[in-house]
């Protein structure tokens, strides 16, 4: 009961934080509210039996990536509100209608389909049992290093390419 209440509180604060984040004119407060959204979704991950993902979400998204954003805002001295940032009523109408169309399609896709049937039926609570047996990290790490090991290595190459590209871009025209 308390868990259901907590889950709904996390869900509500995620939506609220996202709305506030989109409407803030000051980029720094937008970053802070986005961190709040990431913390709320981490709480939801935790209650959906994805403990490792919840931890990574806080460390990687809420920590590393958001600090990177704040760092860029500080570096470029953009931490002040700009009245030109939000588009006018026409932009709001177009953006709002496209977004509502997205919401309708996604909702229909998720829950409205008449034949919404699990492709692979697994017993309820199977993830929780596997986590109790293999450990919270082991239940993710085992398939990652067995079936998906090639994908993992390719992701490593992708990160290397990202490092090289970032250094190249950030150094600019100098040789």
């Amino acid at each position, binding site marked *: 009961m308390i868990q259901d209440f907590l889950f709904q509180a996390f869900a509500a604060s995620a939506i609220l934080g996202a709305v506030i984040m989109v409407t803030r004119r000051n980029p720094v407060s937008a970053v802070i509210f986005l961190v709040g959204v990431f913390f709320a979704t981490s709480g*939801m991950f935790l209650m*959906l039996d994805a403990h490792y*993902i919840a931890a990574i*979400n806080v460390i990687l998204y809420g920590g590393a990536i958001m600090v*990177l954003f704040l760092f860029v805002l500080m570096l470029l001295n953009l931490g002040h509100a700009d009245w030109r*940032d939000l588009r006018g009523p026409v932009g709001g109408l177009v*953006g709002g209608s496209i977004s509502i169309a997205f919401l309708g399609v996604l909702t229909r896709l998720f829950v409205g389909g*008449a034949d919404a049937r699990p492709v*692979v039926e697994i017993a309820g609570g199977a993830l929780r049992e596997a986590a109790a047996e293999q450990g919270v990290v082991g239940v993710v790490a085992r398939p990652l290093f067995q079936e998906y090991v090639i994908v993992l290595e390719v992701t490593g190459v992708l990160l290397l390419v990202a490092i090289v*590209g970032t250094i190249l871009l950030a150094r600019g025209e100098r040789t």
Partner: protein
Amino acid sequence: MSEAGLAGALGVNGLIALFVSAILFSIGVIGVLLRRNAIIVFMCVELMLNAANLSLVAFSRMHGIEGQIFVFFVMAVAAAEAAVGLAIIIAIFRHYEVVDLDRFRLLKW
């Protein structure tokens, strides 16, 4: 099989997570279309990625651990994308002295 069946397979919380994921994604779309600041547009893209992660985790209760593996890879790609994207923004700022998306008209007609 209708909504009740899906709620049975996912649990009520899983269903709420799917709805929240759809709403967060739509808010991200609004942000991308409504803001002119390139950094905030980029943050809204991160919000959309997080919404997709939420639905993957919710579905992983129904389909097995693969959903969480996907989330792991999505996060790795998002980290790479954030680093490269912010480097591009810094490079653009160095050239134009501004991060207003409406000012970048090189490929617009």
